[in-house]
């Protein structure tokens, strides 16, 4: 659906994006994750036809964005980082204008407007001037303008930036509800956004792709050890000593009053450990598996500079 191949963009001597390649399948939500100035916005601007690339290819539903820009633009809905709003228009007037320039035929504009206002939850503000509505509603209007021509692909640049926590949850819910009908690519530097809304992720840093894949694939490929966290009432020192001696265990450390035990991924020691703890009477309070989540992954990649 969305294919980016060896995309490179230079601003003078500054390389904003270098040899970036990734693919997003139909009906998926893909996150473009990276720290600020990683090249997320540049990538999106190239994909939407706002900027030309220095080298490489990008296509949407088979339309090359450089060779067939108008065809590609017709099937892309784009929410830029700075929501492009005209404050002196009402919400309905604005959406009507966007429908017109996105080439929605005149007869279909009214129904498209109604549908979008419904989807984006803008009924209460439809006749208010954009300058008078709240930040959360403005973001919704921004999503609405991206949806008005019912595009196959949605490109959302930092859709939840600057919103309060309740609004963030609302917008994430809205984005999730659009999945399936639309292929969505969203950029963010907020980690939980990816785990909560996306099917897959492309992590970029300094304009390069560091890792990409579905969330499961990525966490699996980055996990070297598996393990559990134990919370005990007593006998920490003894437990540490005993667990370290257990065949297969690689490390056992005390951390924040809890014991973290890790072993090789080709074994499963959970049952053995549970039994042992109960037998020794250490007073088991809690036992949970520790999974290496996207946050660790991100930290490893961006801070540690590990390439896949």
């Amino acid at each position, binding site marked *: 659906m969305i294919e980016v191949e060896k995309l490179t963009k230079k601003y003078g001597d500054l390389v904003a994006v270098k040899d970036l390649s990734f693919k997003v399948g139909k009906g998926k939500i893909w996150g473009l994750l990276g720290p600020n100035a990683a090249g997320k916005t540049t990538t999106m601007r190239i994909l939407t036809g706002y900027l030309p690339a220095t080298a490489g290819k990008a296509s949407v539903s088979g339309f090359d964005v450089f060779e067939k820009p108008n065809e590609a*633009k017709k099937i892309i809905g784009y929410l830029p980082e700075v929501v492009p*709003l005209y404050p002196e228009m009402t919400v309905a007037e604005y959406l009507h*204008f966007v429908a017109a320039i996105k080439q929605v035929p005149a007869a279909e504009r009214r129904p498209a407007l109604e549908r979008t206002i419904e989807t984006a939850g803008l009924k209460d503000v439809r006749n208010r001037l954009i300058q008078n509505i709240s930040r959360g509603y403005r973001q919704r209007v921004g999503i609405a303008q991206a949806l008005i021509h019912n595009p196959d692909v949605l490109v959302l640049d930092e859709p939840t930036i600057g919103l309060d926590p309740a609004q963030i949850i609302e917008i994430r819910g809205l984005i999730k509800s659009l999945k399936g009908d639309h292929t969505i690519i969203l950029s963010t530097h907020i980690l939980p956004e990816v785990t909560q809304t996306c099917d897959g992720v492309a992590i970029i840093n300094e304009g390069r792709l560091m890792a990409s894949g579905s969330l499961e694939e990525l966490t699996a490929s980055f996990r070297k050890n598996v393990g559990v966290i134990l919370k005990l009432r007593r006998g920490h020192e003894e437990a540490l000593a005993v667990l370290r001696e257990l065949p297969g265990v690689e490390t056992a450390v005390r951390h924040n009053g809890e014991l973290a035990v890790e072993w090789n991924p080709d074994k499963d020691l959970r049952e053995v450990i549970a039994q042992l703890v109960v037998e020794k009477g250490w007073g088991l309070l809690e036992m949970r598996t520790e999974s290496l989540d996207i946050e660790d992954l991100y930290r490893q990649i961006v801070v540690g500079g590990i390439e896949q």
Partner: protein
Amino acid sequence: MRNIWSIAKKEIKTYFSSPIAYVVIAVFLVLTGFFFYSALWWFNSQAIQMAQNPYYAQQMNINQMVYTPLFHNISIILLLMLPLLTMRLFSEEMKSGTDELLYTSPLSVSQIVLGKYLAALVVLAAMLGLSGSLSIFAFAFGNPELPQILNGYMGLFLMGAAFIATGLFFSSLTKNQVVSAILTFGALLLFWILNWAAYSASGIWKGVLNYLSIFQHFDDMTRGILDTKDLVYYLSFAFFGLFLTHSVILSRRWR
């Protein structure tokens, strides 16, 4: 064409939903009315004096004595006010980030440029059309020649169209509306007085400078003379402005 009109409609709506268009039109009408009134008053007092002398009374011509100076005055007002009308056209979009919406829509740059141009022309037409209503008084109490007046208004419109194209160009250069207005005003004034330089120039330069001067081409029109040379001048001036705007926008995106 439909796309051009979509953009134009939005711009016209913006002009009239903010104070800009009203203020520009109102101030323009007040100034025009004042100049018209003074010219008419002067004509009137001359007429009373001349009434003693039938020979001179024959020489009285309302077109020459009221309209020719009026058109010159209006042209100066346009020179001052049109940059204020055009300054926001691209600058504001760039500043607020809404240009990203326009350029990621299936529109060509020329459609966007022409749409904005058309919107400003509509406001100009409204300004001139409303000021034309002043002529009711001239027709009620005198007998001016209509074709000559229409010719003058056409000259003003063409000149305004050239000014607007220049303003559009400077607006595409900067995010700052004030800078855009100042540059437009400076450029137009320079073109206006280019014929001054022609006095000291010699040979081919004299002709070139005279030809390039806006003022030189407008003078004939106020007298009711329509020369294709002047028509071509204004149209090519406007076309050149639009062409430069188009190039600036395209080249900025390729940088």
